[in-house]
């Protein structure tokens, strides 16, 4: 998004800065030394598979979890030594909506406002504004345990915004949502960022989400930040196109042996029953690949040419796929 270049001047203090951040559970390094900076006004996508350490990172940056070592500043304050100042400036929607079913939506938002020290007038005004933003309608006066999953998510977001935070953390905001609700969340995130200027740190397992929303993406695997950049730069780094050969079980190695000798193929990787070739100019490379495979007598079920995705970036760096079902 264009906001990035205009807002992030180098002398400006970053909205989020983590240095050598570590969180250990027993002998499991859930976050194993992460350095990152998010500029004010950015949408930063934190992309990683299940168990990569995304939620642990969010919980440390939002003062819920003390880092084992390393430091982090959010909105200019240290999360460990100045937690209350951080709390006043951040909004958080955790992975699971964090609500109290026995209160009504309005009671919950009002209680949030009180705990953030807002006056009665401020609370009334914010509840009204938030109702417009997250469209809960009349349900706001019903007990929360009568809400649908999507309504709970929206109320949870509203609760995160009561005090007009500068930095918003969203931990997997669209996991488990249907495509329509997902699109609505994306639109909301863009609105908050573009119109209200909120810096957004968003975790996701979905590469399309990181691709569509984030100004910059950090890829986390096994607690380590393994790549970082704009989605475009990350994808460009692995070549301008990929050719994917779908093979039957056990055939992948044969295909690799053939195609890795070709000058047109920069790099070959195996992901399950697929052989992924990074190439510079796909159109020019696909026929040499097909011919070489035919000459070697190796049969493939299919050969596809496409542009790289963040999942290909993830495969290249970690040797695994982000999602089991992703192509």
């Amino acid at each position: 998004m264009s906001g990035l270049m205009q807002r992030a001047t180098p002398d400006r203090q970053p909205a989020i800065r983590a240095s050598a951040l570590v969180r250990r559970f027993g002998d499991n390094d859930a976050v194993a030394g992460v350095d990152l900076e998010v500029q004010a006004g950015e949408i930063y996508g934190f992309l990683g598979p299940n168990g990569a350490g995304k939620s642990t990172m969010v919980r440390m940056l939002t003062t819920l979890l003390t880092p084992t070592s390393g430091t982090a500043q959010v909105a200019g304050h240290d999360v460990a030594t100045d937690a209350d100042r951080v709390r006043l400036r951040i909004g958080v929607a955790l992975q699971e909506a964090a609500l109290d079913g026995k209160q009504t939506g309005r009671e919950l938002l009002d209680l949030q406002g009180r705990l953030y020290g807002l006056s009665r007038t401020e609370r009334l005004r914010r509840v009204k504004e938030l109702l417009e933003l997250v469209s809960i309608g009349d349900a706001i006066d019903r007990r929360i345990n009568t809400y649908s999953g999507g309504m709970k998510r929206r109320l949870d977001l509203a609760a995160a915004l009561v005090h007009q935070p500068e930095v918003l953390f969203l931990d997997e905001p669209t996991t488990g949502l249907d495509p329509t609700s997902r699109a609505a969340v994306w639109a909301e995130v863009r609105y908050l960022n573009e119109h209200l200027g909120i810096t957004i740190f968003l975790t996701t397992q979905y590469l399309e989400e990181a691709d569509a929303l984030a100004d910059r993406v950090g890829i986390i695997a096994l607690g380590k930040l393994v790549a970082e950049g704009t989605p475009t730069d990350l994808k460009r780094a692995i070549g301008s196109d990929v050719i994917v050969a779908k093979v039957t079980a056990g055939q992948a190695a044969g295909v690799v042996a053939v195609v890795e000798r070709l000058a047109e193929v920069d790099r070959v990787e195996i992901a399950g029953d697929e052989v992924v070739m990074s190439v510079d100019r796909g159109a020019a490379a696909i026929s040499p690949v097909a011919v070489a495979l035919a000459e070697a007598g190796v049969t493939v079920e299919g050969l596809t040419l496409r542009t790289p995705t963040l999942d290909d970036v993830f495969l290249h760096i970690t040797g695994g796929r982000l999602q089991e079902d992703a192509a």
Partner: protein
Amino acid sequence: MSTVTHGERVHPRAAGFFTDWRTVSLRALRLTWRDPEAFGPALAIPLFFFVVNIGALQKFVEGSGSFPPGFDYKAFQLPVAVIFAVTGVSRAGSLVIDIQDGYLDRLLLTPVRRGTLLLGLMTADFVLIVCLVLPVLTLGLILGIHVATGIVGIVMFVLFAGVWGLAFTGFPYAIALRTGNPTAVNNAFLLFFPFAFLTTAYLPEQAMTGWLATAVKFNPTTYLLSGMRSMLQTGWEWGEIGKGLLAIAGVGALSFSMAFAALRGRVNRS
């Protein structure tokens, strides 16, 4: 940061200890009110036993000859019914739900003074406990118990029970915060069992011998009960009342330090 908003800026700040205490207490009271199944049985069961015990034992105990003439077994049993009604009453069950639903995290993300998260629940507990004492006491008065210390004594009696119930809440809260497990919290009342039975709940101290007598001597409930009974039966016996208060203070110091330590443990997850 130059944040553009669609409304005016609001000014978030730490609301401060007393405001937070009030906020958390009001929520807890509102939810207590919405949750009558949480205290209905707490009231019905002791009332039931009060009536049954009197019906079954009054004649027997009063006629046994080991007590001064004029001994009123109803007045002897009333504190037991009150103590059974209030001991173990707490919002620890709803605290576990807050932990499981992640709502405690949502609260911890605010600058709320951490201690008020427990104090607010305990405040609601105290109010509920006092409300539970009143019907039991009323039933006792209807059954003809004469309170030796008069109106002031009745107020003291209610406060005594209230402070005792409050002092005991720390245990279920400690369990809730340490385990986050509803079953563990539901079983917290088992903690009270030895205290409830190895004491003078049914028979006066003079009637007990051997190891039971020793257990009774070290059981704080014994002193609590004799303090409360003295107010009903004999008048202002400051020695008895003082010992009762000390017993409450001892139990309260233990349970509160466990509960607040458990809260600290859950809050700074280091």
